[in-house]
């Protein structure tokens, strides 16, 4: 049994905060069976204050200020960066589009330990917040379909779970901070900033107030106007949930991505900063001088009136950060194969170049598929290496077939020698077997090369480093981080690798 500290950091459009958790890994296989690693316990050990995300005068994230703020929370918790083994720092929603998101990420990397996935992307955020809110687990336990909507300042991230399994994630490019207001002025609010999404809403005909005002003149709106705007957004969200085509209006919003896979939800869970208003009726609706409070109210009202069951988890604003800290890490099977010197390894793109296991038995095909995948994913040859996920090997898990597959892969790997280490992800519990057969194939090729007196450089190409892992769910993302091994027993017979899957999206304006 091994336990370690994990961090979750959430830098959002409006708020920034973090959580430290302790994760415990144990061997849960029955006695005398091949070991099975599992994260057995997840506990929160520290929750930071919720800070407003520091911005610079030109509206970018103030990377230095974010760094200082996070560093101070580390001090308060009396936790050092080197104590942190895993976790995720999430640059959420709209923030990820800011020009200096990359700079923030790099700064935060300095504060993180071995294997903290510092990343951005709506898919990962939606997934982690639905785990952090408890919606994913509730869906598993109740065998029901639950849609978690994490409503932040810039975006709404939706994750749909059925019987605990993720069906799809969606992102709607509008959030509580789409309109920023300045105090009341005789019953009117002055609009000091409006996002492209809010403007788009006005342009869609749900015109609450026209943009006839000139730039110089301050735009003043009434409470009723703001409520109508919140209602219009909420109605579209309900339409989307009901898969009503009228919701197509949402698609014109920046950042929005709607996946096709859908199932009618039994429950809607609301998390994120805006859901704080839903949890607390007494909270000042203009606490953050934006549309958040009204949007939360409108959403709850519209969802309920259309017959949907709405639930608000505890501490809704902390859903993403809790998910990032407690649910971003997975552990591989405990019979895997790896060259320890390559670990940890970060930001490796993950590809699935094969459709069926039969393709793996064709040496030339394997080679050409690897080359094609490489050209597609990494045309500029920037990534150090790429991880290849193999199709199901159930029909080829006999010794002879697997040996042939390992030989084809090892041959292809030697011809694409720049992939160091060569990383394979296997779905079934076959990682260690494939690793052994792969190494054997490498040794055979080397021996053959020696016999035919090839040069030393050619020889070294055959014995490249290798990582073969199994037992992980790769639905979480398209990039993988692999950490140093964790032993499940004192003799280090069974070792598992902590893994974090993630998505990386920077500045991809729609």
């Amino acid at each position, binding site marked *: 049994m091994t336990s370690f500290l994990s961090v979750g950091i959430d830098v959002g459009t409006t708020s920034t905060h973090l959580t430290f958790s302790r994760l415990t890994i144990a061997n849960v296989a029955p006695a005398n069976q*091949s070991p099975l690693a599992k994260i057995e316990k997840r506990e929160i050990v520290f929750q930071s204050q919720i800070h407003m995300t520091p911005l610079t005068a030109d509206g970018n994230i103030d990377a230095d200020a974010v760094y200082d703020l996070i560093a101070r929370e580390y001090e308060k918790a009396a936790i050092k960066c080197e104590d942190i083994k895993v976790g995720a720092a999430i640059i959420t929603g709209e923030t990820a589009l800011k020009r200096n998101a990359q700079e923030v990420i790099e700064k935060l990397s300095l504060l993180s330990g071995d294997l903290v996935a510092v990343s951005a992307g709506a898919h990962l955020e939606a997934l982690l917040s639905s785990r952090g809110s408890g919606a994913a687990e509730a869906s598993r336990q109740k065998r029901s379909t639950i849609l978690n909507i994490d409503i932040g300042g810039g975006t709404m991230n939706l994750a749909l779970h059925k019987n605990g399994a993720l069906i799809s994630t969606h992102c709607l490019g509008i959030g509580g901070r789409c309109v920023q207001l300045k105090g009341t002025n005789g019953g009117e609010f002055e609009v000091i900033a409006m996002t492209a999404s809010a403007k788009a809403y006005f342009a869609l005909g749900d015109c609450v107030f026209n943009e006839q005002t000139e730039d110089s003149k301050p735009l003043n709106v009434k409470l009723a106007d703001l409520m109508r705007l919140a209602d219009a957004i909420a109605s579209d969200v309900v339409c989307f949930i009901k898969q009503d085509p009228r919701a197509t209006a949402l698609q014109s919003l920046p950042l929005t991505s709607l996946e096709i896979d859908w199932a009618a939800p039994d429950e809607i869970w609301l998390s994120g900063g805006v859901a704080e208003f839903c949890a607390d009726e007494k909270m000042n609706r203009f606490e953050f001088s934006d549309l958040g409070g009204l949007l939360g109210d409108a959403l709850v009202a519209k969802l309920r009136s259309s017959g949907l069951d709405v639930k608000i988890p505890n501490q809704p604003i902390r859903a993403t950060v809790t998910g990032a800290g407690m649910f971003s890490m997975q552990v591989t099977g405990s019979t895997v194969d790896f060259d320890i010197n390559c670990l940890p390894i970060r930001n490796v793109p993950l590809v699935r170049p094969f459709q069926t296991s039969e393709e793996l038995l064709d040496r030339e095909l394997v080679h050409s598929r690897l080359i094609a995948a490489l050209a597609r994913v990494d045309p500029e040859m920037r990534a150090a290496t790429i991880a290849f996920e193999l199709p199901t090997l159930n029909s080829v898990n*006999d*010794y002879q077939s697997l040996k042939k597959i390992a030989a084809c892969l090892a041959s292809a790997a030697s011809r694409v020698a720049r992939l160091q280490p060569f990383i394979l992800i296997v779905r079934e519990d076959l990682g260690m077997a494939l690793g052994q057969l792969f190494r054997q194939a490498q040794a055979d090729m080397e021996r053959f090369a020696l016999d035919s007196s090839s040069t030393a450089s050619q020889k070294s190409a055959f014995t490249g480093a290798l990582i073969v892992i199994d037992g992980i769910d790769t639905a979480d993302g398209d990039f993988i981080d692999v950490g140093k091994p964790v032993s499940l027993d004192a*003799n280090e017979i069974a070792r598992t690798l902590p893994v974090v899957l993630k998505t990386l999206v920077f500045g991809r304006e729609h």
Partner: protein
Amino acid sequence: MSSISKTKQDELEDFSSATPARVAVGRAGARPLTKAWLKFRVDHALARDAVCSELSEEFIQSFAAANSYPFLQSAVSTRDEFIQFPPRGKVVDKIVLEKLKTICSSGNDVQIVISDGLSAKAVEKNAVDLLPMIVDGLKMNDISQGTPVVVRFGRVAVGDQIAFALQARLVINLIGERPGLSSAEGLSAYLTYNPSPQTISSDRTVVSNIHERGTPAVEAGAYIVRLVKTILERRVSGVELQKLS
């Protein structure tokens, strides 16, 4: 069943598919449904067949003979005797052992023994994929090994005698497990350091449930190689190995 709604039925199937155990099989009055009862009878019959199964002539030819693995028999002469008198399946006649010494190399790190145990079917099903993984893996790690020996009517302890006679440091006995009602094809690997007639059960490290729905044979093979390396390094197996820290 008709009184259960469609979604409840789905839920039930979800739950029951999580285990091979006989849950949610339905009933007619106080008795199981005919379908469930027949399935139970079939599985029980398969388990009994497995216990009574013997290594087929075809398997002995294609597996043992073709690879020149010595094939011998415990001190038992029939399957019935083997089932009725367990201790007899643990020993091999002295004459047989003496002959084995003349045809096999001695003093190796590892001696592999393949025994039918309580399911010859399990051996026929899994040994073909499991054994070469272990043999390959040991070779790659420069661990010396004697010629694998195949035993008819063998129990776990039969490996101790064979390995002791051949002076191996470690014995691996790949043996058919006692069949259950969900699998009759499970194989176990018993690893024993310094095997001798004095070896007791707590000296053994075991990897069980090697079969299609358990640990795949090839994966178990690679894992057993890792176990062998550790046991040879630590010079101990079984409960004592687990106690080390």
